[in-house]
């Protein structure tokens, strides 16, 4: 592979993956905060209001990191992928511009009000501010998914005389059938992250015997919302997404599943290592005929394998794609299991004292991040070797005049800055968690001014 191409791919992959650590929690928490505030208003319960305020602080730190790491994303379409932008900008420029015009303005105005304005406005108005923040962040997510959906399954365009893609139908493009399920699937993933983080912090407090009232709220809301999100994650959203890949990107399906030879009654590989040289899975642990059932709803349906497609159309990195997909699915199954058991214990009123389960919930916090990242890697590695599926290859889309040396310079720069951001972010989040949700901390600026 051309070294400049490789650098530009890693550049985007790294900045996008790091960025998405924040929006997934932003979008998940935005929903959970609305839930907390709604219950707080309905029952007039101060614990719920304090809980919402606590998660607002976490949200604020996380939101800022999402904003600052999001800025580079919009630039990189032009800086690193200029040939792609020239080719497809007439179409995807629409959703990217709409994201800033509709979602970013709304969020920037309302997040400040939501975080700092609670004392200035009525509780009901503050509830509306929380709803607006939720709507803004979820809207933003849709525009990004619609952009990605065009790259996965281009619709609503025509090819202009100069060879570039231009918008033919706004509605067809905006409501791309691919985008619907991908959006639902993605948002369930974000809610899963939010719910697991909330539950994990609650479990941490319960295990350490601090802030017990709030911790119970965190665990209860986290488990209920998390359970629903985890179930929806697999069915129907994940299932439908899988069917879409089967129909529209069959070669991607074959690579994800590690199906080298097409066959009727294809097995579903649970564990195993793809061996590209010999065209098989090493050490396979399989469920016979299951893949045929899942994709075509018939035990003996013929599933096309990689052998049915020309080699140059195979996704470039089959092992990584295969593992990303299997990690995502494996973790998704684990989430359902852990949330179902927690929900059962909650129902039986035993969860708050089941220390082993609380430990498990505490330690599960990182996994939704891994699952969400693996999911996006599945989608984007699976799209390869195409940048716009069937229309433009990735190798044709990068900025030809930006050399590997310049690309690596900025990639290393981003790695350095993001490492610092990550450390600072974790440090500040830990301080908020350690301080806990009870009563207002005397804020730095409420103290008497200290002269320098």
């Amino acid at each position, binding site marked *: 592979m051309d070294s400049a191409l490789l650098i530009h791919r890693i550049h985007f992959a790294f900045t996008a993956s790091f960025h998405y650590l924040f929006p997934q929690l932003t979008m998940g928490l935005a929903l959970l905060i609305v839930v907390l505030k709604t219950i707080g208003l309905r029952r007039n319960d101060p614990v719920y209001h304090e809980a919402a305020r606590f998660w607002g602080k976490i949200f*604020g*730190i996380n939101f*800022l990191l999402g904003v*600052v*790491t999001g*800025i*580079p994303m*919009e*630039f990189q*379409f*032009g*800086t*690193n992928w*200029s040939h792609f*932008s*020239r080719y497809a*900008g*007439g179409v995807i*420029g*629409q959703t*990217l*511009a*709409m*994201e*800033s*015009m509709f979602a*970013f*303005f*709304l969020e*920037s*105005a309302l997040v*400040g*009000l939501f975080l*700092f*304005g609670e*004392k*200035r406005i009525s509780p009901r108005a503050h509830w509306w501010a929380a709803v607006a923040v939720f709507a803004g962040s979820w809207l933003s997510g849709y525009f990004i998914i619609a952009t990605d959906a065009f790259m996965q399954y281009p619709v609503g365009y*025509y090819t*202009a005389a100069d060879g*570039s893609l*231009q*918008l*033919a139908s*706004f509605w067809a493009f905006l409501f791309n059938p691919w985008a619907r399920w991908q959006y639902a699937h993605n948002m369930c993933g974000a809610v899963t992250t939010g719910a697991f983080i909330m539950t994990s912090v609650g479990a941490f407090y319960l295990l350490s015997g601090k802030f017990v009232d709030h911790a119970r709220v965190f665990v209860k809301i986290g488990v209920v919302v998390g359970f629903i999100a985890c179930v929806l994650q697999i069915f129907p959203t994940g299932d439908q997404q899988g069917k879409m890949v089967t129909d529209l990107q069959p070669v991607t399906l074959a690579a994800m599943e590690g199906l080298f030879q097409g066959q009727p009654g294809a097995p579903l590989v649970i564990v195993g290592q793809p061996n590209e040289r010999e065209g098989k899975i090493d050490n396979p642990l399989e469920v016979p005929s299951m893949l045929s059932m899942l994709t075509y709803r018939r035990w003996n349906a013929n599933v096309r394998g990689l052998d049915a497609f020309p080699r140059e159309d195979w996704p470039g990195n089959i092992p990584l794609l295969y593992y990303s997909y299997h990690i995502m699915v494996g973790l998704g199954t684990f989430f359902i299991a852990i949330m179902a058991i927690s929900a059962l214990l909650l129902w039986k009123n035993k969860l708050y004292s089941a220390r082993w389960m609380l430990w498990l919930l505490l330690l599960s916090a990182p996994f939704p991040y891994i699952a969400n990242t693996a999911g996006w890697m599945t989608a984007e590695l699976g799209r390869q070797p195409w940048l716009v599926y069937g229309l433009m290859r990735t190798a044709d889309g990068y*900025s*030809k*005049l*930006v050399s590997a040396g310049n690309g690596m*310079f*900025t990639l290393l*720069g*981003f790695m350095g*800055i993001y490492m610092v*951001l990550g450390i600072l972010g974790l440090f500040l989040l830990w301080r908020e968690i350690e301080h806990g949700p009870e009563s207002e901390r005397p804020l730095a*600026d*409420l*103290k008497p*001014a200290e*002269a*320098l």
Partner: protein
Amino acid sequence: MASLWFWIVAAMIATYVVLDGFDLGAGAIYLIAAKTNDERRRVLRAIGPVWDGNEVWLIAAGGTLYFAFPRLYASSFSGFYLPLMIVVWLLILRGVGIEFRSHIDHRLWQDFFDVIFSVSSILLAIFFGAALGNVVRGVPLDATGYFFEPLWTSFKLSPHTGILDWYTVLTGVVALVTLVAHGCYYVALKTDGDLGRRARGFALLCWPVQFFLTFSTLVATYFIRPEIMHNYDRYKIGLLIPLMVVVSLALMLWANPKGKEKLAFVASSLYITFMLVGVAFGLYPVVLPARDPQYDLTIYNTAAGLHGLKVGLVWWIFAAVLAIGYFIFVYRMFSGKVQLEEGHP
């Protein structure tokens, strides 16, 4: 249709510079104008609720540019690769500097983020000015419609231009001085006491520099790109623009010592707006001049398809009305002089 989008993008960029300009300027003078922790917190409080929204105008202008002129976006963003990436880094550091400072009540923590915030603000002002200078001067585009500029070459106007040469450094300095003055007027408007007085004093110091630089850039620009005068010759109404620049300069000089803070700030906003409109008017219909004029990027060879532009106009107007609504709401909510007692920055 493409002309309309040219002016929409120009208006968005001008809005960005006027709005984010004051918080960049406030950042640039922050370390010397705000001396005590109390004063620094007041400056941060003055920009705290609005800086993020102001910055969205940059992102929105970029997004709109992408959608309306994809070829321009592709060429300019890849051509200005290094300076844009540095701008992004500075924006990241600056945002973190503003927001993280208040989280820990410790001298060293706050000093650290104060310096990050101020230095990144200064460098951003210079980079934005230099970027505009590059657009006016022209870039080494070729028949493919792409170019790549290193950060600097010989600082002369050779065929191998760099981002920084004497002209673009000059425009960078103009931008810095202009935004420093703009930031001073804003701080003066939003704060009182020693801080407000000091900000007004700095603005007064900036004025002669601003006056001198305005005219020297004008001369330098004429020397570098005489074509910029064509539109002014063709459409005499364009001569109102330099007139308005002079009027707003005079208004600043008059309003500031009299303590008419709002008027001085408005005059500074008008000055910025008309300086930028003057550039856009001179360039039109060119959007990115090439050193070799046959490769100029214009609104005609960079615009997106007509249907996309028409559809875009519908949602853009709708979204812009909403956005302006949010801005009026937020600025009203946080209007008046900053008081430290309520809430935090």
